[in-house]
């Protein structure tokens, strides 16, 4: 498990392309929705739970175990509240004929 230079290269390309794609996608998000946008992208970045789970598959000692368990609790809070509150916010937006 070392950071091989080919991996690094591929990952850099992935990162740069994803950044350009993200900039392009977010530029076209309606300004109406900037609050739910932030809630949603924050929820999406909670996929870091995957990293914590992988460490939990072969924890070396109790320090590692403690750090990772706390991290999972934090990030799972974000998953639940992030997608939940995004749904709640998006449900508020109604077109003229539906709003009363």
């Amino acid at each position, binding site marked *: 498990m*070392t*950071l091989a230079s080919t991996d690094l290269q591929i990952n850099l390309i*992935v990162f740069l392309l994803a950044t350009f794609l993200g*900039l392009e996608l977010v530029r076209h998000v309606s300004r109406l929705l900037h609050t739910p946008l932030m809630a949603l992208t*924050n929820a999406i970045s909670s*996929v870091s739970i*995957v990293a914590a789970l992988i460490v939990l*598959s072969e924890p070396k000692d109790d320090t590692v175990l403690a750090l990772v368990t706390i991290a999972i609790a934090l990030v799972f809070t974000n998953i639940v509240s992030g997608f939940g509150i995004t749904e709640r916010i998006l*449900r508020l937006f109604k077109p003229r004929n539906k709003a009363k």
Partner: protein
Amino acid sequence: MNDAIVEYLYVVAIVFFVISLKWLSEVKTSRYGNWIAASGMAVAIGGTLLAYQIQRVDLLVLAVVVGAVVGAPIALKVPMTAVPQRTAASHAFGSLAVALVGSAEYYQRLPNIDTPTLAVLSAEMILGYLTFMGSCIAFAKLQGLIPGKPFIYGGRNFVSLATLGVAVALAVYLVANPTQSFVLPIMAGFAILFGFLLVMAIGGADMPTVIAILNSYAGMSAAALGFVLNNQVLIVAGALDGSSGFILAMIMSKAMNRSFTNVLFGGVGAVAVASSGGPATTGGRTVQAFTVEDVASILRDARTVVFVPGYGMAVAQAQHVIKEVADILQSKGVDVKYGIHPVAGRMPGHMNVLLAEANVSYDQLWEMDRINPLFAETDVAIVVGANDVTNPAARTRPDSPLFGMPIMNVDKAKTVVFIKRSMNPGFAGVENDLFYLPNTMMVFGDAKKVLADLVAALGKQG
């Protein structure tokens, strides 16, 4: 075999995340965007659980239960006015989690940790820990636990940057001496201290920009963790989050006519007060105070009305009563719109959410660039809880600290009704020239009460 499957499931998750942002671009498809992102998350987690044998299922269950118990009430109960705080809290949680996993990854790999990995890991931890503390301070300011005023002292930028410098120096030392694990907590401590100093020096009205920057940092630290673990789903998700925060920060600082560095290191509130206390105020100008009845009689003849809300509307919880006034006007055939400045509120898009919650339809919400040309044909512009973003000095007075900032051109309307608690200047500490214009009607009082009285007065007109 499972390893191969999980790689493909990660690809599915990545595609879902990208599609979710695409669908979020329009209100109509936005909810599908949220669902497909949640599905992507489920796929990524499910795939990981399939491919990796979790050693301590008991701890996993404990952590997930704690997360669900804390997260569910946040998702269901947090009022829309408090969404900025909840966003700051989620940045704090997310970046702390990433920093902790990064730390765990360091201890996990000791003593066989190669230099490039440790370098990326150290950067990731510094970013994660500083974002954690910065977001905690942003949360405390937004929640009113600590004063929103910037905490300013001489040489603060030097102290802040020196703190960051120490953290980076410790990181360099750690990379050179990977087994000196005692350095890690000290490095984390200095990163945390830097996050504290950075956000303490930033005032409440700059929060939309700060939250967006912290959003960007949180994403970047997640992406850095992806580099360390050679995990592309994490890299892509972090990059999407990071670029989204970056764009929002750009939009926010542009809407305030400020640069990133100026927001982060300018300490605006206090500086502006010091520099503009004298010259901006001109003696002898008088303000005309009007009553609710005066406003009601003006509105009787109005055909087009634009509401311009600001953070004060959220503070006074006046969004519902604005809708009541608007309903009465609309029932009389008046055309009602809402003009939204990009930095109105405490986070990007905050006003839109509050008005949508009050059942205002989204096609009545007009962003600044679209509404500004229409003010010339507007009979009455009603400013509720906004101040600096309506100050014509931003266009006319090169000596004003606000000069150059894009504003809502409410002064072009035939009549401006400005509801204000008192004559105190706005956040920038600058007097608003709008108050002294002949077409401005100042109405003093709590926004919610004034508007409720207006509902009654309009009702009396029949």
